[in-house]
């Protein structure tokens, strides 16, 4: 089968004028950006001329299916969503997975772009005949899951695939998520961009098979990956889930605690998701995962006497955000917080981050309980849940927190900016940068803000802590990790199968050639990954990013860690600046291989 038969259409929808247009993407673009993040950010790049209001009509939502979505390749049914983040004002490339991703391909689309603003709450229904615009006012206030159920009922189509926002997105909470099939395009506030466009949901219906270039090779390579993904390299995800990180990071003294005032949490044993798994007499565990993924990494827990529909996903970052980072050692409160965020459509890392900052403000006397509306001190699980409700509804102090920690600290002032834990406006994830120097650099320079998944540089510090000796080595390693992540995010293979490849670049190129056709090899894949990073940086430059924005919170330089194996560690401003400059030199010396292709 010729590669040209592979889904390659672009669907552009204008909510303001209720129009749509289907076109074919150019060969040049698809050859350098075969899908996922590469394609999404290139299409975004063509539509960003200068600084824009993330909530303005002109901010596009760009979806791009992964090149393997809908194919037999396992752990790869995913899509990317790129937009300008209302938290950072910069590019936000976010990912989600499962049936909706495959449905996009099955309808023949490589990408989907939504612009404009509807007059009233709207659901888009897309099928082989085109796009219809449906009034969604009756869905307002529903969670994404409830919205999906209601739309399937309305349409009489149980197989309709729905991505939607919950109440937090409707109310423009700047860290609202977009959800489909129980998975979230989580960080950076794409859900609020939906809300600003009065877009409640996008429904995909029907579609055919997704053709592949070489069915035999695809089946063989997919089977190899499937077998590996069922082996010991992913056992930790299948059997334990990422929640098992908590005990490990605590033992290493790298578990950010109480808004990064410590890195060892005395309540870890009480609040780790592993405790739920180890207590079958008290908790029921449900396993879940993405479509066509053998790993099924999601471990949901609920009390034996609880409502199964309220079982909470226990990913490490979520459990960390509401446990150690808020000083809460009550597992029930942590699971309730996660479940509540999923129902409202809130990013758990950012939600935990703004609440932890609030708790520190209250403890320091920067804020009093009457302004916050509740005595929000570290460890108060009830106050944490109350604040989640307030954020989602934007009521009281929740309206301040709904703008993210950077904006909240700017409004509250009184020195609270120094302990607002974010980079470029995106709240920090659950790894302690003071003990992880390459990770600290990766956070600082990340085009998305404080994201742990666009470089995963903590992997280098944890797995090969002595491998990087010089500034240049560390800077180069950071750049290579970013490009490596960009390749994964373009192929949209789940990073949880990364240990299943002996030689990722070559094996991934082989997979791509089998599915898409064309002569992919490791060098071409590397060039594509680099160009993807360059494209993100170019967008940011036009949006107003400056090198001096690549900084980390003052606390990380001024307050050494206390206790645990990382006792005394802090970041050195001068050293980080040296690293940042070396990183920029690496990037400058590794220029893109050609101009960013146009559609």
């Amino acid at each position: 089968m010729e590669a040209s038969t592979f889904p390659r259409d672009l669907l552009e929808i204008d909510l303001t004028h209720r129009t749509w247009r289907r076109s074919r993407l150019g060969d040049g673009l698809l050859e350098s950006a075969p899908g996922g993040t590469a394609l999404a950010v290139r299409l975004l790049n063509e539509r960003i001329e200068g600084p824009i209001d993330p909530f303005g009509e002109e901010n596009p939502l760009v979806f791009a299916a992964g090149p393997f979505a809908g194919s037999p390749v396992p752990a790869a049914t995913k899509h990317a969503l790129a937009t300008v983040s209302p938290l950072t004002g910069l590019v936000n490339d976010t990912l989600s997975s499962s049936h909706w991703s495959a449905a996009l391909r099955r309808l023949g689309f490589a990408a989907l772009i939504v612009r404009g603003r509807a007059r009233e709450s709207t659901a888009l229904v897309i099928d082989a005949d085109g796009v219809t615009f449906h009034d969604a006012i009756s869905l307002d206030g529903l969670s994404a899951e409830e919205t999906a159920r209601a739309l399937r009922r309305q349409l009489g189509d149980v197989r309709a695939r729905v991505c939607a926002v919950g109440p937090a997105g409707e109310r423009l909470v700047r860290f609202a998520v977009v959800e489909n099939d129980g998975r979230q395009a989580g960080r950076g506030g794409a859900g609020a961009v939906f809300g600003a466009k009065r877009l409640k949901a996008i429904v995909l219906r029907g579609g055919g098979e997704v053709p592949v270039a070489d069915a035999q090779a695809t089946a063989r390579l997919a089977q190899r990956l499937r077998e590996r993904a069922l082996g010991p390299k992913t056992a930790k995800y299948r059997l334990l889930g990422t929640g098992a990180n908590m005990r490990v990071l605590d033992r290493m003294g790298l578990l950010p605690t109480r808004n990064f005032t410590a890195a060892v949490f005395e309540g870890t044993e009480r609040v780790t998701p592993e405790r739920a798994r180890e207590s079958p007499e008290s908790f029921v565990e449900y396993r879940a995962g993405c479509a066509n993924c053998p790993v099924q990494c999601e471990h949901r827990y609920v009390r034996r006497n609880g409502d199964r529909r309220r079982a909470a996903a226990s990913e490490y970052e979520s459990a960390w955000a509401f446990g150690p980072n808020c000083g809460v050692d009550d597992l029930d409160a942590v699971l309730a917080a996660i479940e509540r965020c999923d129902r409202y459509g809130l990013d758990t890392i950012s939600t935990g981050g703004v609440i932890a900052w609030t708790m520190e403000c209250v403890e320091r006397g920067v804020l009093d309980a009457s302004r916050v509306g509740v005595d929000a001190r570290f460890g108060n699980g009830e106050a944490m849940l109350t604040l989640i409700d307030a954020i989602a509804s934007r009521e009281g102090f929740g309206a301040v927190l709904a703008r993210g920690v950077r904006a909240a600290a700017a409004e509250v002032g009184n020195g609270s900016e120094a302990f607002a834990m974010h980079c470029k406006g995106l709240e920090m994830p659950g790894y302690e940068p003071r003990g992880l120097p390459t990770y600290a650099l990766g956070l600082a320079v990340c085009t998305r803000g404080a994201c742990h998944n666009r470089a995963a540089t903590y992997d280098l510090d944890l797995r090969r802590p002595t491998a990087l000796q010089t500034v240049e080595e560390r800077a180069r390693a950071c750049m290579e990790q970013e490009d490596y992540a960009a390749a994964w995010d373009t192929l949209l293979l789940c990073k949880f199968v990364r240990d299943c490849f002996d030689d990722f670049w070559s094996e991934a190129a082989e997979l791509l050639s089998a599915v898409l056709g064309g002569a992919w090899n490791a060098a071409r894949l590397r060039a594509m990954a680099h160009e993807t990073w360059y494209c993100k940086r170019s967008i940011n430059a036009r949006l107003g990013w400056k090198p001096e924005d690549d900084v980390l919170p003052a606390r990380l330089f001024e307050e050494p860690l206390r206790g645990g194996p990382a006792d005394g560690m802090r970041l050195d401003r001068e050293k980080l600046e040296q690293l940042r400059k070396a990183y920029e030199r690496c990037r400058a010396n590794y220029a893109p291989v050609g101009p960013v292709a146009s559609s």
Partner: protein
Amino acid sequence: MKLELFGMARHVVGAGVLDVPVGEPATVRTVLGAAARLAPALVGTVLEADGTPIPPHYLLMDGRVAVGMDEAIRDADHPCLLVLASGG
């Protein structure tokens, strides 16, 4: 010597600590080799039969990652068998 177990190691052994009998001088090889013999459930998922950690498992000694199998383990060390389940 007490070997602390985390993640998959803890899961397959069913305990958080393994009391590993080793003579002096102890090395990463002797400690993990003894652990593999004492707890065969570790073999295949966490350790090779000779005690070599299966990536991405590794041995941490109170904040310091063991980089080689012949590295000495001192009395003051607190060895931990870890795996980091990244992401999520």
